[in-house]
């Protein structure tokens, strides 16, 4: 009989739901998690496939090396670079993220997270419009109207439906599903449509027009029936939805990247956030972006807490500057600006636009990741780290900005991202002799 033990109330870090009610059964002989009670299909795969693999501690220019040699090589690359970028950070702990920001500060580099290719446009919209917000706990206990817009939680965040929204029973919705009206708005009829009372299939690239028409209807303005030709949604359907929004007790719009990754980007998110604000003249209404990777919300929080901005932050002048389109990673790489990259727990070589990937092939890349990825394969320095939440403890933020503690289940021979980044930080600082002089001061000194 196998020797097993159970870690109770562990936290799954696959998606932004960050469910913290996992009961993990660990097989002590095979060093694997053999059962993940309460996990969804994605969580079960996450725990099953993130055992401790045998990989080199580090690869430097393709040759096996120790972690310390990897750290030294990484520090030298960063110390020599003139316009380095640090990217990723959504699949690691807040403790690791803060060291990454400190490195960016020391080397006068750019720091950006996967937020820029996720809900970055929503981040821009928050600054423009504001955010009527709530925790998932409030939504679970109060929401009687749930509108999912441009997302497919059934496949991307399965427990969002069962733990926090659609079928969850709450204090003011004691009958769960029966007490809630569920609306899905999307271009495709996805598996999420199965839980919806009302499905609105909007034409591609027309979300903004639907949102703006709803804003008009909520304010009692006239909308021309030709809206159906433009958006694919009949005026009567929009009028019905607007009436439901105004008359519910607690409404919520949970929106996905169907808004941010299509025509309109931050204007789409801004229109939805403005609609939520408008509705507070009539009832209580909130809006939340459905966040992807386990700790992407933590990345926003840590980078904001340390620099004042959530992503796309440049520190080359010795103070933080935020400018999406200029300091966001896809742009920095596609323009060919960066001369080195430190990638933490992300795989841009498999999910970035082609021009950005081509530039990654031209510059020295350092990767920290538990697994072999397309990015680690093109990296000059690849350091194997332990998986957060499985072998590493620390803090992560749920998608509603609630911080949670990790309870690791499997010991790993590999170091944490936090310890590697801390060592790189100290080594770089020593090589540079403190913080790098800001670029403008270097120009002035040379003159």
């Amino acid at each position, binding site marked *: 009989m196998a020797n097993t033990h159970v870690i109770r109330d562990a936290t799954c870090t696959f998606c932004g739901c960050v469910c913290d009610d996992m009961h993990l059964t660990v097989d002590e002989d095979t060093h694997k998690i053999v059962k993940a009670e309460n996990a969804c299909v*994605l969580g079960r795969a996450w725990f099953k*496939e993130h055992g401790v693999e045998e990989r080199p501690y580090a690869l430097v220019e393709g040759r096996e090396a120790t972690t310390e040699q990897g750290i030294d090589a990484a520090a030298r690359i960063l110390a020599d670079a003139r316009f380095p970028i640090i990217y990723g950070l959504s699949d690691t702990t807040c403790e690791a993220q803060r060291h990454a920001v400190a490195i960016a500060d020391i080397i006068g580099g750019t720091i950006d997270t996967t937020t*820029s*290719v996720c809900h970055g446009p929503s981040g821009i919209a928050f600054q423009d419009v504001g955010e009527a917000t709530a925790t998932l706990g409030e939504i679970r206990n109060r929401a009687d109207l749930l509108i999912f817009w441009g997302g497919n939680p059934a*496949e991307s965040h399965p427990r969002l439906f069962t733990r926090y929204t659609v079928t969850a029973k709450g204090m003011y919705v004691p009958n769960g599903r029966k007490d809630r009206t569920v609306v899905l708005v999307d*271009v495709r009829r996805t598996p999420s449509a199965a839980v919806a009372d009302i499905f609105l299939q909007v034409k591609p690239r027309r979300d903004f027009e639907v949102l703006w028409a709803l804003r008009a209807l909520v304010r009692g303005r006239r909308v021309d029936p030709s809206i159906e030709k433009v958006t694919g949604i009949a005026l009567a359907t929009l009028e019905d939805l607007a009436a439901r929004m105004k008359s519910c007790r607690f409404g919520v719009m949970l929106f996905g*990247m169907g808004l941010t*990754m299509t025509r309109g*980007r931050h204007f789409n998110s801004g229109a939805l956030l403005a609609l939520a604000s408008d509705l507070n003249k009539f009832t209580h209404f909130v809006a939340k972006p459905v966040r992807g990777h386990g700790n992407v919300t933590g990345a926003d929080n840590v980078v904001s807490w340390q620099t004042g901005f959530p992503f796309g932050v440049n520190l080359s002048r010795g103070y933080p500057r935020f400018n999406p389109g200029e300091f966001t990673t896809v742009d920095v790489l596609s323009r060919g600006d960066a001369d080195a990259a430190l990638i933490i727990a992300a795989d841009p070589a498999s999910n970035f636009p*082609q021009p950005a990937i081509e530039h990654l092939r031209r510059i020295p890349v350092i990767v920290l990741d538990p697994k072999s990825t397309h990015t680690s394969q093109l990296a000059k320095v690849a350091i194997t780290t332990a998986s957060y939440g499985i072998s590493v403890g620390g803090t992560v933020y749920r998608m509603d900005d609630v911080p949670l503690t990790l309870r690791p289940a499997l010991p790993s021979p590999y170091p944490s991202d936090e310890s590697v980044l801390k060592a790189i930080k100290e080594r770089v600082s020593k090589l540079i002799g403190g913080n790098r002089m800001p670029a403008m001061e270097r120009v002035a000194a040379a003159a």
Partner: protein
Amino acid sequence: MSETMILIGGRTSSQGTSVCAGKFGAEYVNVSSTLEMNADDMARLGLKDNDSVRVSSATGQIVARCKGRAVKDLPSGVVFIAYGPLSSALMDGDTAGSGMPLSKSIDVQIEPVI
């Protein structure tokens, strides 16, 4: 025979589970190279499930296997692919000053591979 369509990239359950096993595994490669298409569009282009199609954008070109979806689920003129190296090959680096490439709204040419 080719047609212009809108490509949407996105997540699926099988993409999510297979990515945990590794991006070089057969399942992930299979999932991320399957193009979902409206069944009527497929019939018009003379395609059936598992046929190869060439998908071209202003940035790149890929060959994927197509899979039919009910007409009510996926509108005519829209194709879907799970995120991965193939969808990435079609994406432009221009973010219009936002930081975000248009991964859910790519104009593509679709043609059967004979």
